[in-house]
């Protein structure tokens, strides 16, 4: 977020890059609760590769099916997951951008600028509904802590893709090297479903051995 933005609030960031303090800030910041884990998943300001700003939870997550993973412009090891997600994008078709969204989360605020991320997005043909996101270092760190590992715990993951149904509060994690079909199928696991009333239970298994 910009300096003028902070000045408008009349507060200064503390050592953690946090804005505002104590009860006064909480009062200022009060917002409607939007569902499960909405107070746990940071609603930080992020910048997209399209040079727009958004609130992470309110604008990008709320009510959606999402895939979230970590990238770095300078770490080519993270690009293989982007390549896989390009295949997932193809599988999702026009659902991507409508109710399914992919977020590639920067890990290196200094180098993962919106311009640099735009380069990655164009390289892999990211369409509507697939956003590369960056933010201030403290915000990126917080997002990684909350989505990929606990505070004080291990470092964020380049190896993990989060998949979630935000409205239901149902989240899972899949290996970043999984193939595109597996990743798309995991999204189907968490998708909101509907019970067919009156149907008798159907046999799923085990299947005949021979």
């Amino acid at each position, binding site marked *: 977020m910009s300096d003028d933005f902070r000045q408008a609030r009349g507060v200064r960031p503390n050592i953690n890059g946090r804005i505002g303090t104590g009860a006064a800030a909480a009062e200022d910041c009060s917002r409607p609760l939007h569902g499960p884990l909405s107070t746990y998943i940071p*609603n930080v300001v992020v910048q997209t590769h399209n040079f727009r700003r958004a609130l992470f939870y309110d604008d990008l997550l709320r009510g959606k099916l999402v895939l979230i993973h970590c990238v770095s412009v300078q770490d080519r090891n993270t690009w293989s997951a982007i390549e896989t997600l390009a295949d997932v994008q193809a599988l999702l078709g026009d659902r991507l951008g409508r*109710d399914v969204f992919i977020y590639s989360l920067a890990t290196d605020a200094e180098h993962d600028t919106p311009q640099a991320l735009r380069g990655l997005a164009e390289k892999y043909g990211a369409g509507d509904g697939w956003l590369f996101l960056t933010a201030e270092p403290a915000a990126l760190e917080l997002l990684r802590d909350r989505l990929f590992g606990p505070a004080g715990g291990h470092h964020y993951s380049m190896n993990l893709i989060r998949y979630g149904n935000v409205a239901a509060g149902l989240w899972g994690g899949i290996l970043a090297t999984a193939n595109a079909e597996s990743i798309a199928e995991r999204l189907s696991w968490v998708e909101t479903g509907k019970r067919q009333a009156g149907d008798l239970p159907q046999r799923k298994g085990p299947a005949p051995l021979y």
Partner: protein
Amino acid sequence: MIRRDFLKLGLAAGAAGLISPTPVAAQQNRMLEFLCSPDGLPPDLLTRPSPNSTPFLAPLRVPPVKQPLAVPLSPPPDPGAHQRYEEFAPKKFYEIREQEFLWQYHPEPPYNKGSWSWGFDGVTPGPTYHARYGEPIMVRMINDLPPVGSGKVGFAMPKTTTHLHNAHTAAESDGFPMDFIGPNEFWDHHYANFPSGNDPREKLTTLWYHDHMMDFTAPNVYAGLAGFYLLFDEQDSGNENDPNPLAFRLPSGKYDVPLILHDVLFDHDGQAVFNKLNTDGMLGDKYTLNRTIQPYFRVERRKYRFRILNGGPSRFYQLFLSSGALRDKLYPFIVITGDGNFMPRPVCAESIYLSVAQRVDVIIDFSQFKQGDQVFLQNRLEQTNGRGPSSRILEPGADMMRFDIMEARDADKSRIPDQLRDLPPVNMNEVKRRRVWAFDYRGGMWTVNGVPADPEMMRVDAAIDKDTAEIWTIRNEGKNWSHPIHSHFTEFLLLEVNGRKIKATEVQTAEPNDPRRNVYRDLARPIDRTAGATADFVCKSEPIRVFMGGNRRDITTLLPNDEIQIFMRWKDFEGHYVMHCHNVVHEDHAMMIRWDIVPPGKTRKPGDAEPSSSPKGRVRHPG
């Protein structure tokens, strides 16, 4: 194809609008209005403790015994879907439903209005199976859970696969993580109820069933999908008045009480909270026994058998039995089993250490107390995060349950035999090969030998010849975390721990202030064969300080830097199984391998592709 259905559904739904983060200028006011980051966000959910609850207000609930069907299963099971079905033709048939319901953890507000839970047949823990060796059964597991988004337990996955923990079960009935059923689907589980290799020394006693869904075991078990499965035979006959001279005559009936321990976190509304985004582990701040917060239990002045199970998801326990305002008077447990099996002889222990999914059966003789006395079951092991316990013992510890002592109604006919069941022998001539499994962490995922589980569970990490034994080295590469490692299908025998050979007669214990807990005490005493089963066990000498397991187990408790060598044998069935960390949050973040039992001589190398005839996620069993 699930994926195609998924895409089709999306097209049909089509209502949601395209999000487009609005340009900065247009959104500035809105951002100002709602900017609330990162202030007010707790480092973890535990910083919002559960609502208060007065201890010992609610009685302990004992799950009902599951009853078989009086009519045949409809539609009937498919004999061609099960290995050795005709040979172990089911004698009893069961139907059980996974359901969502309100469950009262505690009688005070906000808990009194109920917490949305999952369970079986409307209860959690689910009903207890009373099974017998020599009596195969068929269990039809029906998923009656609400689909995603229509239920109240949002954090759990309504696709399920039920594992009968440590049973000697054919692969197709074992609850393989990708053998899942969705709402309104069922899966038939054939439990043949015979010991491995038909060796009576391989028998088991206290088992439990729980969900094992790929990526979602932790939230699904936490939501309530667990229950007990007890296996009886002519020795452990479930009848303390059994006239059969072979019978152990352990406390039975209402004096044989299963206890599952779960630590649960609740929100201000009394609803269970689970943080799926934490990869270290999930801790709750309310101790529940059989899903009641800190219950009391009225017991008679006589012997009881308690089957104590750490149901997880991530907490380790060290249990004590104590009394007094300061809980400073301690009473030993008489431990008769470790994990699923009887030890050769009972052990007298001042405390019991249980990593996740570990079990002990203990005898507590309440005749040592007076009517009106109160005795407390406590946990004293400190644990502040999901990675594992600290080495500290907290005093006076946390009360989990209160026993209220009453006079006995009748004479206590139950016994504690001085001899229980011999261990199966280690026979090095059976060993076909050795393998090493190193447990570690990389890039947000928990790994075994450097790799997380295959997301489709198609990679076979070990192909094991049927009717052979192997020696596995289970190693913790982590200095800061603990892993209770569980391998399905067959229990193992300890050979070596951190370079020290372990004798069959040794049990694991610890000395005061010993963070390593790698002390083994040899409890060998000459067995008086002439006395047979007529001798009674009594705690004669000083109890060991802590019982951490006998020689035969199904959980390898890896504390930081541990390396444990075990002997395992595979018999009777073929197919796909798993080994995984039973800190189920670690399991869900891929700390799991697939191993297959294959026909002798047809061993595929690790990493070899599945035979092309195999359907996805399953294994066919060539004749």
